[in-house]
């Protein structure tokens, strides 16, 4: 056995392998720094912590949704229903609170339950009947959006005093900075997701599933349970994201969050998670969401550029990262 040789090359090998796994993450972080630097050099008033915090305030709900999506994509699946689920949550909350006088303390758990239950149901269908996640969550997407319209085709504004009070609350930070409670919630969810993914048996099974599903099964891991759970997590995160959006917009509307599934997927991919599953970090997703937010910020600071450039830039980034994934993570066949 070539003990000496392997111990000689080991440090190098170890560096390069870890490097390869984290490369996309580093690219994203570099991109973020570069964008912030360019913004700061170009535009007056850009270089401030509050600008960054505002990115979080405006995208807290997206972060929560993207975290749920990260779980699903890590297993090698996809969840197209998140945008509709967000809309359904805003609608359900507004309808319960505004039109039925339900207290928030009742509406919130109910909405979360609907989200988690819907997700679990989709996960169950995907696992039990071996139907592609793409098509099952597509049905979920139609269903949730359709249910919104069944509640109302109009936007329902929230005027409930408790709700508006919570919506206007600001958490003050030292140095005159502030964030919204939604940011706190999003960051707590992020921390929780990190712990779950990296330090629990469930989280490691999620990675194993994305690495090789049939191996995971032969290794005796609870494949079915984990799959159902992952979609339930995504549903739960969408519902929570929907609640945050309700507070942000102070309304429920069936046309809220149209296309948010695309933003969430883009954030996850730009955050360095492989779409084939098994590799990625939830912290990368947070970076991905920040990149998306910064693009919007720069475009609004720019003033002359219109909002659709956001989509184009996101699409461009998606393209670059998908190419990077093929070049550096392309050991597994795509078909």
């Amino acid at each position, binding site marked *: 056995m070539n003990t000496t040789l392997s111990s000689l090359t080991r440090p190098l090998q170890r560096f390069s*392998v870890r490097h390869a796994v984290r490369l996309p993450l580093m690219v994203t972080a570099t991109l973020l720094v570069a964008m912030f630097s360019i913004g700061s050099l170009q535009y007056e008033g850009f270089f401030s912590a509050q600008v960054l915090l505002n990115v979080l305030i405006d995208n807290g709900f997206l972060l929560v949704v993207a975290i749920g999506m990260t779980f699903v994509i890590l297993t090698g699946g996809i969840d197209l229903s998140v945008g509709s689920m967000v809309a359904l949550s805003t609608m359900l909350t507004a309808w319960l609170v505004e039109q039925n006088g339900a207290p928030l303390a009742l509406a919130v758990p109910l909405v979360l339950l609907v989200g988690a239950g819907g997700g679990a149901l989709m996960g169950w269908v995907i696992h039990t009947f071996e139907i592609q996640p793409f098509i099952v969550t597509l049905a979920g997407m139609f269903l949730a959006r359709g249910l919104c319209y069944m509640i109302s085709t109009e936007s329902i504004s929230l005027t409930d005093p408790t709700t508006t009070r919570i919506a206007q609350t600001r958490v003050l930070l030292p140095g005159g900075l502030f964030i919204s409670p939604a940011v706190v919630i999003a960051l707590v969810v992020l921390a929780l997701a990190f*712990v779950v993914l990296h330090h629990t048996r469930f989280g*490691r099974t999620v990675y194993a599933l994305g*690495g*090789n599903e049939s191996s995971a099964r032969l*290794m*005796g891991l609870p494949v079915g349970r984990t799959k159902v759970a992952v979609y339930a997590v995504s549903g739960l995160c969408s519902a929570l994201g929907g609640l945050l959006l309700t507070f942000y917009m102070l309304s429920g509307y069936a046309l809220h969050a149209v296309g948010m599934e695309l933003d969430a997927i883009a954030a996850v991919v730009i955050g360095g998670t492989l779409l084939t599953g098994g590799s990625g970090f939830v912290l990368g997703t947070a970076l991905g969401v920040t990149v998306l937010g910064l693009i919007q910020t720069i475009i609004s600071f720019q003033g002359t550029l219109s909002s659709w450039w956001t989509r184009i830039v996101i699409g461009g980034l998606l393209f670059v990262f998908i190419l990077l994934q093929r070049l550096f993570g392309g050991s597994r066949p795509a078909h």
Partner: protein
Amino acid sequence: MAAPPTPRTPTGADRPVLEAHGIRKAFPGVLALDGVDLSLFPGEVHALMGENGAGKSTLIKVLTGVHPPDAGTVSVDGSLQWFAEPLEAQHAGISTVYQEVNLCPNLSVAENILIGREPRRLGLVHWSALHERAERLITELELDLDVRLPLSAHSLAVQQLVAIVRAVDVKAKVLILDEPTSSLDRDEVVQLFALVRRLRDRGVAILFVTHFIDQVFDLCDRVTVLRNGRLEGAYRVDELTSVTLVHRMVGSELRTLDELAERSHTGTAATPESADTPFLSARGLARSGAVQPYDLDIHRGEVIGLAGLLGSGRTEAARLLFGADHADAGELRIDGERAVLRSPRAAIAHKIAFCSENRKEEGLAGELTVRENIVLALQAARGWTRPLSRTRQDEIAARWIEVLDIRPAAPEAQVRNLSGGNQQKVLLARWLLTDPEMLILDEPTRGIDIGAKTEIQKLVTRLAAEGTAVLFISAELEEVLRLSHRVGVLRDHRLVATLPNDPTLTPDRILGTIATGATS
């Protein structure tokens, strides 16, 4: 049926840790196992051998709870066990390592060893304890790996070792290794064997499934041989020679086959070899992990048989000649001209045809009709813009259905609904239609009935007489001898000999070559 000999175990343990008795297992249309016994003693390496279809993998699946047996008993440590799923077998101390590494390449070595039973603290994975435990297991087995690296950073061989470490850590009393060496090179096999011996010395019973004769003699204490789903016998390895072992696997009936006199070489002592330049000539052609460098000449009108046990590299050698896999080394000449076959398309352009052994996955488009499958290769060569008219297609299909007697004679039937023999004929028709100069047939008669088999053999003889070069791969020596002008013998991914099929060439001689590698 041979009764198992009274086991004299090498370790002297008197009671088997795993005992299977009278196992019977039928699948629709196939009786895969019929009254098979197996006993494994602590501290022995026990080989399980048999040709393709002998029932090895079914037996393993029964032992590990993948399939329930139809009859028979499995007992562990003397008590009867009934495993409903693989996890239960694992809990009873039976672990399996498969040919393909069944681990997760994206997780670290330590996690791959311990996932599902990670040490935890307050409900969270206790990473330092996990790494420590993995580290300890690795060093205990005298391996040298960084357990924190992702599994994908290691070679296939090391991954296989990790799979064994995982299997052993489940407190395995019995370790089943299902062809663990089939894709490893020589040094890697040495590494693996060292680990297996260490486990044996600690009292683990190891069931070792392999196709490599040498490995049985290198490593194993006893061997159980299966044939046609029945127990052929269980033997101490030191009481066998490689030749007797091969005979036991392949079946002793072959030795009595004397009607071989009718075979083709009697009339064609002067093979086309002496004539002109060979149609195809390979020099040092090789692909790492698949087949060692080999030389082979095939002339027009010549049938070359490839003999060798399953997994000996027959298919791999043939795939290089068709561009299905890319050769790493060596050169290929077609009609004396240097040729590089980058894809099957290139080979087809040289009028080479290849009927894969794996009809379902590599041969037929199951949803398409018999007619479409027949014309597919010809159509692919013409490109989509020059379609064969429907009338032409119907004519072609009707003609080949008649010529090869494909049943049912329904050109519009979906090909997946045909029986194995008829599917094989559809494949043959597809390639014959392209009028190939060389035809590679990989196990064309496997799993098909006698009638169809004879027809296919006749067809091969006729094609050769008409000037086609044929490479004929079969596990049946009788068939190879009946049809071939020369026989290439493969052993452990190496073409060890190319023997002219003269009257001195007998199944025994080929078996001897397969068993020992010497041409004697």
